[in-house]
């Protein structure tokens, strides 16, 4: 069983939704139960629900259609991420008595044995916000010794590489590239792989401008323009 925290809102959705979908589809294809939450963003809670439902109801031939409450559950958001995670570390059922649709968690057979982070095999945090990974690492990893993997927007990824080296997180998906690599690893290239073509040309253009700028700099220095 994995817990996926969709800690992003629509502003970074184009970058993180393909990644979130790849992670959820991978879990469904392996027959792994998924608990979804939106720990950091109230605005992202409806978006996360859409992603989970889309993956569950459109299996693309990879797995049977997944049923809410039997194969996955979406818990939504609770105010104040720090307190929410602290309480989840002690008792998930006390933090979220019901799922996003109002059904009692204790009534779901696969949720009965899940009390704390320790009962979840892996936590996946997908986020685009500074401060969110730190909170997860402090509480889930440091305090409650849970194993965490992260998927993040590319703009913030380099700041979190040291945590991968120190093994405070055990996996790190960098932005759209990470999503594309994940899709290829699953053998199901999709939207992230398609969008990497645009990335290729954009990066080539930036490299070209950097080279031209450097040439101009050295020419000006040489001939004193």
């Amino acid at each position, binding site marked *: 069983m994995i817990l996926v925290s969709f800690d992003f*809102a629509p502003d*970074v*959705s*184009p*970058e993180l939704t393909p990644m979130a979908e790849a992670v959820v589809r991978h879990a469904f294809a392996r027959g792994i139960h998924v608990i979804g939450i939106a720990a950091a963003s*109230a*605005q992202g*809670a*409806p978006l996360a629900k*859409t992603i989970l439902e889309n993956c569950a109801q459109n299996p693309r031939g990879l797995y049977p259609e997944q049923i809410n409450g039997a194969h996955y559950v979406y818990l*939504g*958001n*609770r*105010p*104040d991420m*720090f307190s929410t995670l*602290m309480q989840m570390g002690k008792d998930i059922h006390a933090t979220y*008595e*019901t799922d996003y649709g109002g059904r009692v968690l204790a009534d779901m057979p696969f949720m009965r044995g899940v009390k704390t982070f320790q009962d979840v095999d892996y936590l996946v945090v997908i986020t685009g916000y500074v401060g969110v990974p*730190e909170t997860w*690492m*402090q*509480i889930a*990893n*440091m*305090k409650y010794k849970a194993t965490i993997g992260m998927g993040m*927007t*590319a*703009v913030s*990824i*380099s*700041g979190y590489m*040291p945590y991968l*080296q*120190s*093994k*405070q997180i055990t996996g790190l998906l*960098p*932005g*759209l*590239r990470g999503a594309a690599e994940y899709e290829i690893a699953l053998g199901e290239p999709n*939207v992230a792989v398609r*969008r990497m073509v*645009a*990335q290729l040309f*954009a*990066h080539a253009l*930036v490299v070209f401008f950097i080279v031209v700028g450097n040439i101009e700099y050295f020419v000006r220095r040489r001939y004193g323009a």
Partner: protein
Amino acid sequence: MAPDTFMDLIGVWLAAVLSLCVFSFLLRDNILYRVTEAIFVGGSVGIGIVLEFWNGFYPKLIVPFQKFVAKAADQPPERWVWAAYMLFSLCLGVLFLSRFSRKQAWLSRFPMAYLIGLGTGMGIPLGIQTFIFEQTKATLVPLVVFQGELVQWSQINWIVTLGNTSLVVGVLCVLYYFFFSFKKTDLFSRATSRLGVAYLMLGFGASFGYTVMARISLLTGRVDFLKEDWILGTLRYFGW
């Protein structure tokens, strides 16, 4: 999401028009861009408040309190303590609203002090462990790593050795670069600082490359939406 219903279609058109208004900033700052920006900020705050109410305030305070009041006479003492604590929390939260009054604004310091105290108490020990102890531990790595039990030249794992060495050298050089207690005029200091700068530049370069990727990702996402959901979605909706 391609439009299936008429309401979906209206939503997609609204999103597409607002997206184009945002892109109009590329020409110059204009009223359409500013209106869209205001709608975005106002909409985000509005949605946030509503969701916070229904996800937090309602299930965590109102519903339990309603249940408590319905059977107030039969409640054990510990439930009364719980109710008192909840009421105290509610009053503390309401004090935040005193910010709107110039005279009573000082009252908001109480919940603020409570929150800061709580956050500091919980956050500092965990922060020191997570960001200082663990990171320092991860930097204390052996400079030479051997593949097997034998300590021989042929047994050196060169890839890990080079990785560890460059990590330790990089950390020390960057720290030395930011050490301003004396003037760095001698050869050692200048060379070490230069190496530190090189490490920093590598880091900044990686950040810049990833930033380009992030921004292009957002752009392609929006262009994808305009093409797939707006133009092709509208055509599909009308059966063209």
